[in-house]
Each structure stands twice: as structure tokens, then as C-alpha cells.
């Protein structure tokens, strides 16, 4: 029997959730026995090559590319798991949600400590190839239907492990107190 297939991505995240996934220590060997990976930074497969069973989403949606990737995951994964605070509620990137975009961009490209004086023409990145920033950072479940949520910043390795095992085996997910954290 073929193994269940997992895809992962980091949208507006910091890859911390991916790090936490790797933090399952020696159980990573069990994981490889348990599942195959498709599109994921872990194996560097850039595009979906087949329908997947589980999609793990890190990060919320801050730009148009995030939206396209997330929708692509929804189309190609039977189960989507919102993983980490950013995917669940926008997280730290969402702290810009009440600041006008122009102000954010000016801070980043014109007036910030590392840019002040280095951008005399006052150019804000506007190449047509670049993703377009959204009006605010959206939690993933505001964009597509999400099936499960794993909170934490990052979610504890044990939580990700428990969840993956439960999803693959069909057993009930274990949620001991110590693994549910919002930070």
C-alpha cells in the first residue's frame, strides 16, 4: 500500500513551524516510514505532482502569491492543517493590520533605519513580477476551508507529531495540556 502524501508550505511565516516539524528528533525516521512528501521546502518539490492527503500550512496570507499558493494547496490536498499562530490568526505579520499600507512600505523602503538615505528616488517596489501586498494579513481560514488547527509559535514538535500520526492512522488526536500553546 502506498504511503500517505504530505505537502507543506510557508506563506507569511518565518519557517519556524517547519523547524518545529524537524524538531521531532529521531522520530523523523519514523515519519519517513510513515509518509511521503510532495510539494514542500523539505524536499524542494516546487509544484504539486499528484493529489496529496495532508497539506501543512505555515503562515497567514499577506500577499497575492500567498493566496494563490493556499488555493493551490486546497485544490491538491484532501486535508489542510493550519499550523502555527500566523496561519491561524495572522500572527506577528498581522500586527501591521491597522497601519496604512503606504506607511508600512515607506517604513520598509524609505524611512527605516537601514533604508533612510539609500533610496533617494523614493521607489517603492512595483515590478509587475512581484506579488501584491494585501490590505491586511489574513488567517488561512479566511481564504479557504481549513480542516485542523495546530496553535503555537511554533506549535510544539510533539503537537505536530501527534497530529500527523493521528491523521495518518485515523486515531484520535492526543492533546495533552503541555502541547497546546499560543506562543
Amino acid at each position: 500500500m502506498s504511503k500517505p502524501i504530505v505537502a507543506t508550505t510557508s506563506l507569511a511565516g518565518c519557517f519556524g513551524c517547519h523547524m518545529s516539524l524537524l524538531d521531532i528528533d529521531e522520530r523523523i525516521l519514523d515519519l519517513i516510514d510513515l509518509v511521503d512528501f510532495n510539494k514542500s521546502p523539505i524536499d524542494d518539490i516546487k509544484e504539486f505532482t499528484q493529489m496529496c492527503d495532508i497539506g501543512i500550512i505555515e503562515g497567514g496570507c499577506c500577499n497575492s502569491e500567498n493566496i494563490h499558493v493556499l488555493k493551490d494547496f486546497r485544490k491538491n490536498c484532501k486535508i489542510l492543517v493550519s499550523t502555527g499562530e500566523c496561519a491561524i490568526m495572522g500572527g506577528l505579520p498581522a500586527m501591521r493590520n491597522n497601519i496604512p499600507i503606504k506607511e508600512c512600505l515607506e517604513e520598509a523602503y524609505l524611512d527605516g533605519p537601514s533604508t533612510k538615505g539609500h533610496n533617494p528616488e523614493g521607489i517603492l517596489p512595483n515590478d509587475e513580477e512581484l506579488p501584491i501586498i494585501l490590505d491586511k494579513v489574513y488567517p488561512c481560514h479566511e481564504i479557504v476551508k481549513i480542516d485542523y488547527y495546530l496553535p503555537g509559535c511554533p506549535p510544539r514538535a510533539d503537537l505536530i507529531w501527534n497530529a500527523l500520526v493521528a491523521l495518518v492512522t485515523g486515531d484520535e488526536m492526543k492533546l495533552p495540556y503541555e502541547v497546546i500553546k499560543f506562543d
Partner: protein
Amino acid sequence: MSEKIKFTIDGKECFAEKGANLIEAAKENGVYIPTLCHLEGVKPAGSCRICNVKINGRPMTACTTTLIEGMNIENNVEDIQELRKIIIETLFVSGNHYCPACEKSGNCELQALGYRFKMLVPRFPFEFEEKEVDAEAPKIYIDRNRCILCKRCVRSLKTEDGKSIFAVQGRGYKAMINIDHELAMNMTDEEATHAMDTCPVGSILKKERGYYDPIGSRKYDKKPIGSEIEQIVTN
């Protein structure tokens, strides 16, 4: 000696002194009734509504209930727990609670209730409403993104001559906590620390303190809120 009365919580026989406050008496009997606004020794507000219980079948807030003989209280029952969870989730979306960036994380009572009630995601959409931060006072600042309007500060933090340092401004969903700048000028370090500790969330913070306890040794890292009460063995 004052008179003892008998009452039950979820069928468990409990005892208290006549006229005792239900939340506090429950605690004495090893029963945790969750709350965010109650503060022992301060006039109850009944504002967070999380301590809702059923008393002889009727929903009531425990913090505003004075016990009388024979009260039959339902605490850990499904519909009450569901109501509490809904309120907790409401509070999470009504503000901007970025737990990973909050100095109070790990010691925050709202977060702790989120853990205790196994909230993985609020069922309600986040609104990301803009809230003001007021950092004018020399020793403390107030971050309204995290405020849950429990009014603990309003009710308990007064000057020596009894004047309010904090008060509510506006009403409804626009209501917010205001700080009296003039009176806050004279707050001592001790008072500032007390103000921060009074706040169940990370809304009132002492300046120049920041993160204090390392992750893993904070109040609610390992044990759920209320578990210290539930460990009390009563005879």
C-alpha cells in the same frame, strides 16, 4: 463562630460560611469556577460572564452570588462550559491578541483559559480593530489591543484619597479603559507592579520590564489555570 451552610456543586457536598461568595467558597472546597474579572476583596463586577453557573437551574454569575443554604450549583456541565468557551473566544477576536509578542504570555489568564478550554482557533472571525496604546504615564502603559474590559483596574486601583486612576470611557464595543494621566504621574514602582499584576492580560504593563520569566517556568506553562484549586483536598 459564624454559621456554616451546606451547598452542592455538581453533586459534590460543599460547606462554607454563611454569606460567602460563591467563587471563593468553591475554591475553599476544591472546585474551580473560571473567571476573568473577579478579584478577591474587590466588589464583584459580573462583567466577563465566564463564571456563569446554574444555580437551582438558573444561569447566574458565581462572582455576584452570595451563598445560601442548600444551593444546588452546576458548574462543570456541558452547556455552561460551551457558553464559557464562546465568551473566551469572543474575547480573543474582540481585541488583537498576538500572544507570541506579548510580555504577559504564559502568565495571562485569558490565554490560560484558552488552554484550559482547548481553544485551537476561535470560531469567530478576527476583526483586527484598531485600538490605541496609551504610554503617557511614566511608570506604566496601557495596550488596549489586549484589554478585555474586566474592570479589575477600575475597581481596585485607587489613589490614597480614593480617586480612580482608571475608568471606562465610551460604551458598547467602543468602550475602553482610560487612565488619569495626572494621577498616574505619582504612581510608585510598587503601585505600577501591582497594577500590572492586577491586570489578567497584558494590557497594563510596567515600563522597562519586558519579558521576565523564561518559557517553561511561567505560571501556566505546565499546569492549567485552576488546577492549583482542584488539588486542594477537602474533608
